[in-house]
């Protein structure tokens, strides 16, 4: 799904969620090559010129999430949770930590020991970033989310300074794990259900699949 379509879909779901018309959602998508820049991002972290990007078939898209610049593309599992945090913890920091936990637990199931680096939001394996996080919140409803490198062609990150950090990136494939986006998506969705349900005692015990909409 291209970035603009996913962006529009999110926007629609956020409005419906704010109005209480729909329950929480988790969108899991794969984008064609695109570089996106957060609201507080710095254009200078885009290292490649517009022409180079165009020649490489990479779109450029300013967007309204937190965080700096990042790349999305084939082989990357992108998740957009549309959650009303008022029904969770009303805590954006806890929300980001919970997203990290979901990804860390997912990677653990594939035998990858991933973790956090204090003050550097995201999920890291041996000092390399495997998943990026950038969130937008409007009236406690979340949008945007995370991007987990499953079999991403990491050379595309050379066009940018990911999130403004000069730290290397990695992927599950680069760590020797062969998995499809679907495989990872199912495992991740199960962890997502667990992490967010068990923290939400008021929610009826939903099965892992009940609150997600997969559009891979």
């Amino acid at each position, binding site marked *: 799904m291209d970035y603009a379509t996913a962006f529009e879909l999110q926007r629609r779901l956020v409005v419906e969620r704010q109005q209480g018309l729909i329950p929480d959602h988790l969108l899991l998508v794969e984008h064609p090559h695109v570089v996106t820049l957060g*609201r*507080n*991002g710095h254009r200078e972290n885009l290292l490649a010129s517009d022409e180079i990007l165009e020649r490489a078939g990479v779109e450029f898209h300013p967007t309204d999430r*937190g*965080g*700096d610049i990042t790349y999305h593309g084939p082989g990357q599992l992108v998740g957009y949770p549309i959650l009303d945090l008022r029904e969770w913890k009303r805590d954006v920091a806890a929300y980001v930590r919970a997203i990290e936990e979901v990804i860390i637990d997912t990677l653990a199931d594939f035998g990858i020991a991933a973790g956090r680096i204090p*003050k550097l939001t995201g999920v890291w394996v041996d000092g390399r970033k495997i998943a990026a996080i950038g969130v937008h919140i409007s009236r406690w409803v979340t949008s945007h989310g995370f991007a987990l490198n499953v079999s991403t062609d990491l050379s595309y990150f050379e066009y940018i300074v990911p*999130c403004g950090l000069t730290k290397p990136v990695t992927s599950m494939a680069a760590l020797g794990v062969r998995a499809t986006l679907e495989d990872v998506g199912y495992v991740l969705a199960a962890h997502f259900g667990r992490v967010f349900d068990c923290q939400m005692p008021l929610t009826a015990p939903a099965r892992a699949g009940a609150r997600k909409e997969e559009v891979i």
Partner: protein
Amino acid sequence: MTDVVMPQMGESIVEGTLTKWLKKPGDRVERDEPLFEISTDKVDTEIPSPAAGTLSEVMVEEGKTVGINTVVARIEENGGAPAAAKPPAQAAQPAAATSPEPEPEPVVEAAEEAAPAPPAAEEPAPAAEPAGPLSPLVRKLAREHNLDLSRVTGTGAGGRITKQDVEGYLAARPAAAAEPVRPPAPPPVAPAPRIAATPAPAPLAPAGPAKTRVEPLSTMRIKIAEHMVLSKRTSAHVTTIHRVDMTAVAKMRERNKAAFQANYGFNLTYLPFVTRAAVVALRQFPLLNASLDGNNIIYHNEINIGIAVALENGLIVPVIRGADEKNVLGLQRAVVDLAARARSRQLKPDEVLGGTFSITNFGSFGSLVGTPIINQPQVAILGVGTVDKTPVVINDAIAIRSICHLSLSFDHRLIDGALADQFMSKLKQVLEGWTEEVQ
């Protein structure tokens, strides 16, 4: 007139950066209409207006970081004539008087989400700070270069110090000449030492990008560091390691795992089994449950077991009181409860005091064997390694058993090796011949 304040976006968040005003002074705003945007960590949030009316005054300019509950704007409800917008920088001092800053939690993770200094601390000391407002960029530059701004001559409007002034000053400083200005980092920035209080020493690296980064220790880290060194200095640490066959425990655990999850909603791990076995051994060898006070031995009649809990930025050891009165179920419940509350920073102060013996379960992180440091004033600590299926020789045949290495660090001032190993043998015997029901 309604005050618009920086909202609290979460328990550990003490401040936020106002990134964008969506309305200008004088604009009409509806209740719940997005008014401004803030940024905390990697999260951007639109903040809706608390009231309908006219945005009469904007007190915090874009790019400023202020504490929660700081008044950032005022809204005139009856649509009265808006006061002329004050220059934001001048009015930008956080309204500390009207809304006292909540004390950041001293313990866990407080420094994680945001720089710990509440806005009041950013208020410059009058003597060292030059007159006139400072832009966030100038403050940031000064912080990065550890620069005393009172030495910089401002050339901007009203003697205001501009970015060019700082850069000019830096260029004139010989040692700093080659240090490039680092590109702006995304928030949160590392807590920086207070500029006004520290005279500027010459930067260490004269050329190239900064090779080091200075960050003050969190309160918790300082406490941990002091405690660890104190313990090493106090006790004569010796560690003994025993290999324990956990197969009987593993079977018991397998049998009850599903029931635990279904009945109590938590997992059954190896830790409560080890804790229970330690209690039995401590009863038999009370010297391991004692403390040393000068030339006196203090025997504790209660068995209160500290369980080390890893936190994102540190470690805390909450205590299971009366551990000898609990079965495996009770111990597991206590472990789950204490660990969860330790991680969400909801432990009460007395819940980390009064331990008589400690257990640290580094096996959960994959460690085979460790040599833990004694938790003073206790005299011994038990380390639990991973439980792995391992080929072992039993009666000259090779069998697959669940093997775990237990290590005991003890204070040789009070406990000799023979006693420590008797204690460990007892523990091993309980675990290897496990029969006790768990619930």
